[in-house]
């Protein structure tokens, strides 16, 4: 019995190590990426959100600083719309290989990541990684609070790095709870909100030495400016 348990746990550790190997390769590939900025265009195809395309400039500095600069109102999907190659850190997740597959004609592997912190909003993700290029091609955010989000990422090559040129998000989220009169409500009754958000990145500037000041939080009445 003890032998079986030992074999099972050894198998589990082996599976975790394999899974992390793919994440390590991604981290290694992008280790030279200190920062980037790009123009972002967001196109909404959601019945409950009638909005024209929105444009902004997005700044990223490793490991996790992000800032969006827009003179106009800008809605940016909270999950899946923003590229950070360092977001899946070993210390935060348990990982296991789900399957090996051919994705878009290329060899790929599917990993399931489960957050170690059970309080976290995110219940986990399933990543599909192109193992030849070491890039994440698809992120499926596992249902949390009824939300299901899938991001499909297409890459271009900029200054030595594969960076997203197009992220297609498929959203399936529950309607907001009825709130006060002032509250913006999203979706009706028990009807779920489904739709697509397409994010296009262009005009990349990579490793231009973005200063930390760019990411300093500015918040003033009448506006929402929330760097992460």
């Amino acid at each position: 019995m003890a032998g079986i348990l030992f074999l099972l746990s050894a198998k589990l550790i082996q599976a975790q190590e394999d899974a992390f190997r793919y994440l390590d390769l991604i981290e290694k590939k992008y280790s030279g990426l200190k920062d980037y900025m790009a123009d972002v265009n967001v196109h909404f195809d959601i019945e409950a959100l009638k909005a024209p395309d929105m444009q902004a400039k997005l700044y990223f500095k490793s490991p996790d600083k992000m800032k969006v600069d827009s003179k106009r109102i800008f809605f940016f999907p909270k999950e899946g719309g923003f590229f950070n190659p360092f977001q899946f850190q070993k210390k935060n997740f348990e990982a296991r290989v789900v399957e090996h597959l051919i994705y878009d004609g290329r060899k790929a592997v599917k990993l399931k990541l489960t957050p170690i912190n059970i309080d976290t909003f995110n219940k986990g993700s399933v990543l599909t990684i192109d193992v030849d290029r070491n890039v994440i091609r698809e992120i499926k955010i596992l249902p949390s609070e009824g939300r299901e989000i899938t991001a499909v990422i297409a890459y271009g090559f900029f200054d030595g790095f594969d960076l997203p040129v197009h992220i297609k998000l498929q959203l399936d989220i529950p309607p907001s709870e009825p709130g006060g009169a002032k509250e913006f409500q999203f979706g009706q009754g028990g009807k779920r909100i489904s739709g697509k958000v397409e994010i296009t990145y262009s005009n990349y500037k990579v490793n231009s030495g973005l200063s930390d000041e760019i990411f300093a939080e500015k918040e003033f009445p009448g506006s929402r400016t929330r760097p992460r």
Partner: protein
Amino acid sequence: MKLFWFEIYKTFSRWRTYISFGFIALIVILTEVVMKLSANEILYRMLRSLEKDFLIFGNVLNGWFVTAFIMNSLHFHIPFLITLVAGDIVSSEATSGTVRFLLMRPPSRSRIIMAKYLTTLFYTTGLVIFLGLICVSLGLILFGNGDLIMNYQVPTIRIAFVPEADVPIRMLLAFAAAVWSMTVVASLAFLFSTLAENSIGPIIGTMAIVIVFFVVGNFPFDFFRTLSPYLFTTYMIFWQRFLDNPIPWQEIAKSAAVLGFHSVGLFLIAFAVFNRKDIKS
């Protein structure tokens, strides 16, 4: 035309006419200053549902949004302020005993009632324009410019986004629609004014109808929902539709036609009543 200007002069010579303008200025200034001071709380309440799924950047609580927010009060206080003049314009002649002197003059009853009605419309338009000017100017000074996001409940709950460049013309159309809506309230009060011998009755009568229709039209029961299309108050919020994306022109045309039909109908009844009225004092 001379008669019209004479009525305008009479109306704007009364201090009570200016109560409405003063009240609107006070309400708008108070609302906008409080909104400015409570901006963070308002933003939190407004956006907490959206912020579950989106990061939101930019000036959401801008002058245009604040204007649209205050315009929602058109349901309540603007009709009351309109009735102060519209409900008084004919009946006050009876109260003060001047109606017989008025009718002894050469202009016909039809011309007199027409001049009084046009004066009522002039006042109504002026009041809504004043509301618009003060809301927008103070709003832009305190909150700045920006795109407009609106939350709609019908036909589905959704969020509409109007780009900054389109907002001024959309707002102009919305205020024109608001004037059109308020014309019905003015016409109703005007009709009651021709029927009554004092000013209180038309004011209370008009407000009672407006409030009852609004309440009945918004009850969440099937019976009241079936009544809703027959109440003019249902169509009075059609100004909001100019801030939708895309603009539902067909629905706007229907609402405008229903309201126009009411205004014309109410005026024609008032016209007939006044022409046939037996003036005894």
